[in-house]
């Protein structure tokens, strides 16, 4: 392979991947429709889903996709931005290294290593000491609006169809606020993130506007037997475990003994009657005799409920073990009717699932509606992604706060203290107790600390400005590659009207010079830590790609020998 050809071929591969996701980048991007040969249809704008669904054979392509997968597992955000930034960095490195004719590959590798060195030594510093305080001072007082809504809206806008954004944002925020009753928002987010598959239900055939939040847990199926219970007292529920219905391998029939196939069912009925429950939940189909008994005794029964959901219910309502299964108390049993589709619903009292008195949760279920199964999958996966993203924001805060402790200067502290003493105390307490702080509004704290930033390129423009002025970091050539590539991201958002981006950049730099304008702003937000993580991941990927010298294709021969022996055998049989 000619020297320098590797960078060119890598760039070609990455550009091909970029062109696939470019169409769906940004809030005005479109959807991608996948059709498998089996007929399965996937409709999405979610970068990770698009890339996972591609069948790629080129090894460089596979390497890139692996890197993106690793990044998304950690940050849950930014797979499309990853590709655009990667392509833009490779283009600039290729342009710079093309000039050195004979050793262009080496030069490219050298540039990549220098970029990675810049990233590990100094980028954190620039972001923490210059970008973050700048963001905080620009937007702390000027931003009006719900921070959570801004964060959720920013995430959702790039991942679903334009018409779904408002509805989903509203419903997700409502869902969070209904769950959250105590003080520790991070714990609420973590709980929802871990159990999200059981905290949402989907209904197909209805417009998206009918999505809502339902109190209690939806069991994902309808009641087989249902009786109204109007009393205000807590209701006893029995949760059966799978092996209750296990039957023996063999049954013996003797002369005088009459075989009774319903003995197990009847035994179960007696046990259940002793426990005096009003509701029975079973993970499998109940025998008919149990259902008959339930109708007689006016006991509600729900069958085929998923076992992990039953576990979650046990945990949330703090159930106790009984002779058969587990017994617990719930506030109400009812059903949710949505367009002719009926789902069983169990109301739960707010509880402390971990026994921790600070962590109070009020269970609700998110009901998502969409006209068809394609848009429905998209909504469900985006909602799940929102909580993964919020969880990663909070996780990043723990590490950043520890770092902050060592890097923070006294002048910064006194500045923020005088400006807003109420919001400063949580940060101080966070240094000592990273779990949860008695903050009145942790979301607002994130904004004051400069950890969230409005979308549209604010972070990129500020990073560009501060990196260019940090001469001590690295050579000007290396710095300019990084800063110009970083600016390509917001440029892509405005590709249909480049003038808008230039105006935006100018106004932001103006604010930087003359102080924040007093115009209130609101809108979508994104997390600074996610952006930082993206930069690090992309630079590592560039190094990895450019460290490859040669690609060797090995060829495993198809086992034709086996095929030929089989055919000769069958020929022989025919002859016989």
């Amino acid at each position, binding site marked *: 392979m000619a020297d320098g050809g590797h960078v060119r071929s890598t760039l070609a591969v990455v550009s091909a991947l970029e062109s*696939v996701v470019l*169409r*769906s980048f940004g*809030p*005005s*991007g*479109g*959807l*991608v*429709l*996948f*059709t498998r*040969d089996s007929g399965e*249809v996937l*409709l999405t704008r979610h970068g990770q889903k698009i890339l996972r669904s*591609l*069948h790629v*054979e080129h090894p460089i392509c596979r390497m890139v996709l692996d890197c993106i997968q690793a990044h998304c597992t950690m940050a849950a955000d930014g797979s499309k931005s990853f590709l655009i930034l990667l392509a833009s960095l490779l283009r600039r490195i290729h342009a710079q290294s093309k000039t050195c004719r004979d050793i262009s590959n080496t030069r490219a590798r050298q540039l990549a290593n220098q970029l990675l060195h810049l990233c590990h030594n100094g980028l954190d510093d620039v972001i923490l000491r210059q970008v973050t305080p700048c963001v905080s001072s620009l937007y702390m007082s000027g931003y009006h609006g719900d921070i959570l809504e801004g964060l959720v809206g920013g995430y959702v806008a790039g991942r679903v*169809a*334009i*018409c779904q954004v408002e509805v989903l944002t509203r419903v997700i925020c409502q869902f969070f606020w209904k769950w959250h009753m105590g003080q520790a928002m991070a714990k609420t987010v973590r709980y929802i993130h871990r159990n999200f598959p059981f905290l949402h239900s989907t209904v*197909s*055939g*209805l*417009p*998206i*506007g009918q999505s809502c939040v339902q109190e209690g847990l939806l069991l994902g199926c309808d009641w087989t037997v249902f009786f*109204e219970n109007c009393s205000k007292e807590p209701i006893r529920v029995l949760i059966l475990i799978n092996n209750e219905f296990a*039957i*023996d*391998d*063999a*049954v*013996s*029939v*003797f*002369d005088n003994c*009459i*075989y*009774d*196939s*319903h003995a197990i*069912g*009847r035994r179960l009925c007696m046990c259940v009657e002793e426990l005096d429950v009003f509701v029975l939940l079973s993970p499998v189909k109940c025998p*008919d*005799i149990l*259902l*008959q008994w339930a*109708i*007689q005794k006016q006991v509600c029964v729900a069958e085929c409920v998923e076992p992990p959901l039953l576990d979650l219910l046990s945990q949330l309502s703090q159930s106790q073990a009984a002779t058969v299964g587990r017994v617990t108390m719930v506030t109400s049993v009812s059903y949710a009717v949505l*367009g*002719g*589709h009926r789902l069983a619903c169990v109301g739960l009292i707010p509880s402390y699932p971990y026994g921790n008195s600070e962590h109070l949760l009020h269970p609700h279920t998110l009901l998502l509606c*969409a*006209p*068809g*199964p*394609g*848009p429905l999958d998209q909504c469900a996966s985006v909602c799940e992604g929102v909580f993964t993203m919020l969880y990663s924001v909070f996780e990043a805060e723990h590490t950043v706060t520890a770092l902050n402790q060592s890097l923070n200067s006294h002048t910064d502290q006194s500045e923020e203290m005088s400006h807003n003493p109420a919001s400063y105390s949580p940060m101080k307490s966070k240094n000592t107790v990273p779990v949860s702080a008695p903050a009145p509004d942790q979301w607002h704290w994130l904004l004051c600390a400069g950890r969230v930033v409005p979308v549209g390129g604010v972070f990129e423009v500020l990073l560009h400005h501060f990196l260019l002025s940090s001469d001590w970091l690295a050579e000007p050539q290396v710095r300019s590659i990084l800063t110009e590539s970083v600016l390509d991201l917001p440029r892509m958002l405005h590709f*249909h009207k480049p003038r808008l981006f230039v105006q935006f950049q100018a106004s932001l730099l103006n604010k930087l010079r003359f102080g924040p304008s007093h115009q209130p702003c609101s809108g979508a937000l994104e997390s600074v830590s996610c952006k930082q993580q993206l930069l690090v991941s992309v630079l590592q990927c560039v190094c990895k790609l450019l460290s490859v010298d040669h690609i060797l294709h090995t060829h495993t021969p198809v086992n034709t020998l086996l095929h030929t022996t089989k055919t000769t055998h069958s020929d022989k049989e025919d002859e016989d």
Partner: protein
Amino acid sequence: MSRLCNKTPSICKDEPLSDGEIDRKITLLRQIVSSCYGPRGRLKQVHNNVGSQIQTTSTSAVLLRAIQTSEPLLKLLIVSLQNHIQRYSDCGLFAAILCLGLVENAKQLNSRTRVVVSVYRHLQELCNAYLMGQECKCKIKIDFSSCQELLVVARSTIISKPVCGLNPAETFHISTLVMKAFLQTIPTNPSDSVRLGRTVMVALEGEAVEKSAVLPGVLIDMPEIFPSEAVEKFESSPCRVAVFNASLSGDLSEIGKTALEIHHGADLEANILDKLLKLGEQMTKDGVKLVMCQRVIHPVLQQYLREHGIMVVERFGIALLDPIIYVTGAQAMATLHTPVPSEAYGQVAALRRDHFGSRPMLHLIPCGSPVVSTMVLCHRNETMLNELKLACERAMHVLRLTLKEPYALLGAGCTEAHLAAYVRHMSQKTLGASAALGCNPSDILQVTDAFCQSLETVAMALQHNGGHSLIDLMYGHHWTSPSAEDMHTDTPQSCGCGLISNSAASQWVHLNTRYPDFCPVPPTNSASHICVLDSFLAKVNALNVAIEMANLLLEIKYSIRDVN
């Protein structure tokens, strides 16, 4: 899993909607659904080349199931429409025509997709707010104290399917029956939780439509060997009923895969038969007169029961299990090993033997006021009968939906024309929202025009016989004129839905032309003149589904298709 041949590269298409091939397919689908729309719609015959049943239909549920398309965009749309039809049973064709119209009109505009989608969404909210609000002039509140409006709703649903081939008298008769069956499903004794009953449909081919009837209770096919004298005894006296859903045939089907070890000397069949006969003894002692089993009853047990004067009905099937439980009030016994508790028995007021055509049927008449009834539908041939059955089921569903929202929308294209006029009028006022939507006022006007044209196309799709669609410039209702010239002398007596008479309106223009902006005024006539009404919930949902699917289709920018 290994491959037999190499993977061929997937077909990637940028901006799939701009492809001419897909354009043609969308136009074709729109023509298919438009040509079936309305009471004068054209019929479609569905058959495949492997000899399955031929269906003649204009119902969207059947048509969409039969349309096989290889284009994934259209498959997406068809699946969503099928989901809507499954939930609401009505307005499937309306949603299809509107959605395809919105997509086609949007493509002809020069605006960016984001602008089109934002404005469509804004207009969707405007329409929803208007239709749900109190000031809506195209919706009628259903008065449940008289059956007039319910009858009109039922009639409009049935008359929209021309395959049924009913003349006006037959239509009236069937609509009355549907309404009667619906009213019978509503329980009369008030309690905390109201549960609607059921109507079982029995189809009879070859008889005249006038012979259709609604009967309280349940009808079961009577086997030929049934002794008719036995039934005569119970024609006027109540009798006790036992219902079983377990198998009484003595086979051990419920044990599944468990192995049975039968020891020397044990006779399993004799044991089971013994049990069955003990059960029979108990029922005889308890005075049961009718034993019904969903599955098979052992012949020896049947013989025993008949000897003791008990009637036996077996194999009535799972479809009739719930209705029979409702009618008799019995609890279905799931086992033969325990004695039947006394509270598990049910009762019927009387048994009767009825003949419908050549089919003898056993009629179970319930005690008290029944919530279960049977509708016997008769028609001359199988095609019309199938379509009539579908139409009646749809009409029943639509009537049930009125219990949720007691409103109906004006039919025959009047709601669509009225809504288009209203949206055009409001768009002038909402130009101030252009900044919020991120576009300029001229964009808003263009996209609003495209939206209203799509609505008007739906109203115009009702014309199949060369008539012309007109709109009046006062109320915004849809009128049909047989000829284009002499519009003023040759206008029909009233608008499509019947609410406005031609003396009240003064000016008409063609629906697909530009007309001066006006705000539709509320009609002054009483609602008694209306002859066509549509289901409110179904139509609103169809409108929302159509706009959302159109937005989704317009936003698809890239399509990747696996070949193998």
